C-alpha cells in the first residue's frame, strides 16, 4: 500500500517536473509571441545606481515616465560597467526580453559597444546618450544629448553675483568633452558679469568618489572659493560639505536645494523625459530613427533649479535675460575671440559656434580664467 502510494506520488512528481521543464523551454517563446502581439519592449542600461540622486537617477526618472505610456514595457539594468558587460546586457535584453529599443545611458557605452551591437542587430533601435554619431555609423542608432552648458552658463551668472572672493570652484570627475564644456560655459557665464573671475578645477578621476569629492570641496573652500559646483554622478556630498562650510553651491543633474537651504543658488538639471518620448514615439510609430537628437532649454531637454534665497534680484534679472536669448535660440555661448588657459586661440575672432555645432562636442581645452589642466 505504502509502496503504491510512493510510486503514485513519484509519478506525479515526474509529471510536474516534466511540465515545468516544458514550461521553461517553451515559456520564453510563447511569452515573446505574446509580447509581439501586445507590448513594445524597451531596455534601459545604467552605469551606476538608479537611485544615486544624480545622473543615473535623472535617466531612471525618464524611464519611469516611459512606463506610464500605454503599450510600452520597460526592462532596466543598473550598475553595468562600460566594458563588454554592457554588450552582454544589451544582447540579453534583445534576446531574452524581446527588446526592440535599447537606451544606453552612459558616455562610455558608445564606442565600441553600442556601435558593435547596432551592427549585429540592425532591426533593433539603439538610443545612446552623449555619443557623437557620424555618417559612417549604423543608421539604427540615435544619439541624444542635452545642451546643459546653457544651464551652466546661467549658473555662472548667478555664481558671479554671489561670489565675494571672485574665485569659483568646480569639482569634475574626468576631463571628457562634455565636462570641459560645462566648466567652460560656467566660467564664461561668470566672466560675462565680471571678467576677472577665475574658476578653480579639481578632477577627482572617477564618477563617484565621495571621500575625494569632500576633500576637493574642502581644499577649494580653503583656497578661497566661495561658490562651488560640480560634474560628478552624485553631487550630494559636495552640496552638503559646502553648506556645512558656509559657501554657496550650484547643483547638477537634479535639484539639490533641500540639501542646502542656505547656500543653494540654482542648478543645471536634466529633463530626459523629453528626448525619451520623442525617440520612443518615433520608434513605436515605425519611423526611421533620428540619428542625432539634441536640445537645450528651448527644447525642454534641460532645466534650471528655481533660484535659492541667496540669489539677488540683479542676478535673477541678468540670468533671466540670457535665458530669454537661449529660449529664442539666438544666444551663442562659445564665440570668438576666445582663448584657452594656455594662451592659445580656441575660437577665432568672428567665429560663432552655435549650440548644434559638432565642434563643441570635441572640446579639449579649458578657457582662459580656468585654473587647472586637463
Amino acid at each position, binding site marked *: 500500500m505504502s509502496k503504491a502510494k510512493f510510486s503514485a506520488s513519484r509519478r506525479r512528481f515526474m509529471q510536474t517536473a516534466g511540465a515545468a521543464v516544458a514550461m521553461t523551454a517553451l515559456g520564453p517563446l510563447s511569452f515573446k509571441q505574446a509580447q509581439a502581439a501586445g507590448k513594445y519592449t524597451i531596455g534601459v542600461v545604467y552605469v*551606476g*545606481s538608479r*537611485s*544615486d*540622486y544624480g545622473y543615473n537617477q535623472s535617466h531612471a526618472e525618464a524611464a519611469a515616465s516611459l512606463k506610464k505610456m500605454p503599450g510600452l514595457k520597460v526592462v532596466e539594468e543598473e550598475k553595468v560597467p562600460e566594458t563588454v558587460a554592457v554588450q552582454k546586457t544589451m544582447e540579453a535584453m534583445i534576446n531574452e526580453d524581446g527588446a526592440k529599443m535599447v537606451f544606453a545611458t552612459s558616455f562610455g557605452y558608445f564606442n565600441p559597444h553600442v556601435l558593435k551591437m547596432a551592427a549585429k542587430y540592425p532591426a533593433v533601435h539603439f538610443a545612446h546618450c552623449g555619443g557623437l554619431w557620424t555618417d559612417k555609423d549604423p543608421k539604427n542608432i540615435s544619439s541624444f544629448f542635452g545642451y546643459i552648458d546653457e544651464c551652466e552658463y546661467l549658473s555662472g551668472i548667478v555664481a558671479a553675483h554671489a561670489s*565675494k*572672493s571672485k*574665485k569659483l*570652484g568646480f569639482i569634475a570627475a574626468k576631463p571628457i568633452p562634455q565636462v570641459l564644456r560645462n566648466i567652460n560655459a560656467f566660467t564664461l557665464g561668470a566672466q560675462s558679469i565680471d571678467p576677472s573671475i577665475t574658476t*578653480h*578645477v*579639481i*578632477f*577627482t*578621476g572617477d564618477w*563617484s*568618489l*565621495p*571621500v*575625494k*569629492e*569632500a*576633500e*576637493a570641496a*574642502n*581644499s*577649494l*573652500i*580653503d*583656497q*578661497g*572659493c*566661495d561658490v562651488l559646483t560640480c560634474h560628478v554622478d*552624485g553631487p*550630494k*556630498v559636495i552640496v*552638503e*560639505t559646502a553648506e*556645512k*562650510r558656509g559657501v554657496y553651491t550650484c547643483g547638477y543633474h537634479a535639484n539639490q536645494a*533641500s*540639501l542646502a537651504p542656505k547656500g543653494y543658488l540654482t542648478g543645471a538639471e536634466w529633463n530626459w523625459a523629453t528626448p525619451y518620448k520623442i525617440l520612443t514615439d518615433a520608434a513605436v510609430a515605425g519611423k526611421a530613427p533620428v540619428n542625432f537628437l539634441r536640445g537645450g532649454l528651448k527644447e525642454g531637454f534641460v532645466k534650471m533649479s528655481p533660484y535659492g534665497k541667496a540669489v539677488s534680484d540683479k542676478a535673477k534679472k541678468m540670468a533671466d535675460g540670457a535665458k530669454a536669448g537661449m529660449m529664442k535660440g539666438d544666444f551663442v555661448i562659445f564665440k570668438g575671440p576666445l582663448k584657452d588657459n594656455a594662451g592659445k586661440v580656441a575660437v577665432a575672432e568672428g567665429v560663432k559656434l552655435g549650440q548644434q555645432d559638432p565642434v563643441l562636442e570635441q572640446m579639449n581645452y579649458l578657457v582662459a580664467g580656468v*585654473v*587647472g*589642466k586637463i
Partner: protein
Amino acid sequence: MTGSGLGLWGIPLEVLAGAIRVSTPYLLVSLGECITEKSGRINLGLEGVLVMGAMAGYATSLASGSPWLGVLAAGLVGALFGLLHGLLCSMPRVNDIAIGISIMLLGIGLAFLLGKPLIQPQAPTLGAIPFGFWSDSPQIRSALQINPLFLLGVLLAFVLHYAFRYTRWGMRLRIVGDSEDAARALGYPVLPTRISATMLGGFLAGIGGAFLSLYYPGSWNEGLSSGQGIIAVALVIFARWEPLRCLWASLLFGAAGALGPALQSIGITSAYYLLNAAPYFLTLAILIATCAPNRTLQGAPGELSLVR
C-alpha cells in the same frame, strides 16, 4: 585675510586637515584588524563590514534622530559580522581568507540592497569639537574641527599598545595567536578568544563605517568606501601588528589622499592621476621596503595563515 586663499601655505594645512579627516576609518579598521590578527585569524571581510556599518549607522541615525545611536548600531552590526566570521572559521578545515572574502561580498551586497532608500534622505550627522576656536582664520578653524571618533581611535591605539604588552588579556591574545599548542597547554580557551577578537575587530570596523556615513563625507551612497577597508587590512601588515604604527600609517594614508586635491586647488594639476594614486603607490612602496625574500615578516603572529 578672511575669505581669501592661502596659496602655497595652504598645502601643509590642507594635508594635515585631510590626514585628520580621512584617516579615521583606516585607523579604526586597522586597529580592529590588529586585534583579530593578534589572535591568529585574518579577516579580509572588513571592507564589507565597513560598508555594512556605514549603511546601518546611517539608517539608524535617520530612523532614531540620534547619530550616536547610529554609531552604536554600526558597531553591533559589525560585531555580528565578526561573530559570523569567527564561528565559520572555527569549523574544521575552513580557510579564514576565503570566509573573509565571502563576508566582504555579503556585506557589500547586503548594504547596497538595504541602502537603496537611504541615498536621498539626510540623516542627522555627528558633530565635531572645535579645537580651532583660538584662531580667526576660517581655514585653521575648519582644519581643527575634530570628530570625537578620531580622538577615540588615537586613544585606543595607545591603550592597545599598552594592553598588548603589559596586560594579562594582551598576553593571552598573543599566545593564542602565536601558538595554539602553547595556549592549550596553558589552558587558555583558543576558539572563544579568537571569536571574541574577531567580533571586536568587526565592532571597530563597523564604527569606522559609521564615521564615513555620519561624519565625513557624511552621507550614504554606494561609492562611499571605495576600498578603504581593504587598504586598512593591508595597512596592518606593514604596521607589523603594532597599534601605534597603525596610527601613524593611517595618518600617512589620510595625508596622501588629501595631497592630490590640495595641490589641484592651487592650480598644480599636472600628474593628478599619479597624485590620486598616491595612497596605493605608498602601499606598494612600503611593502617593497619592508619585505625581503630572505626574512619573514617581523612581528607576525605565528598562527596567522599568511605566514604559516
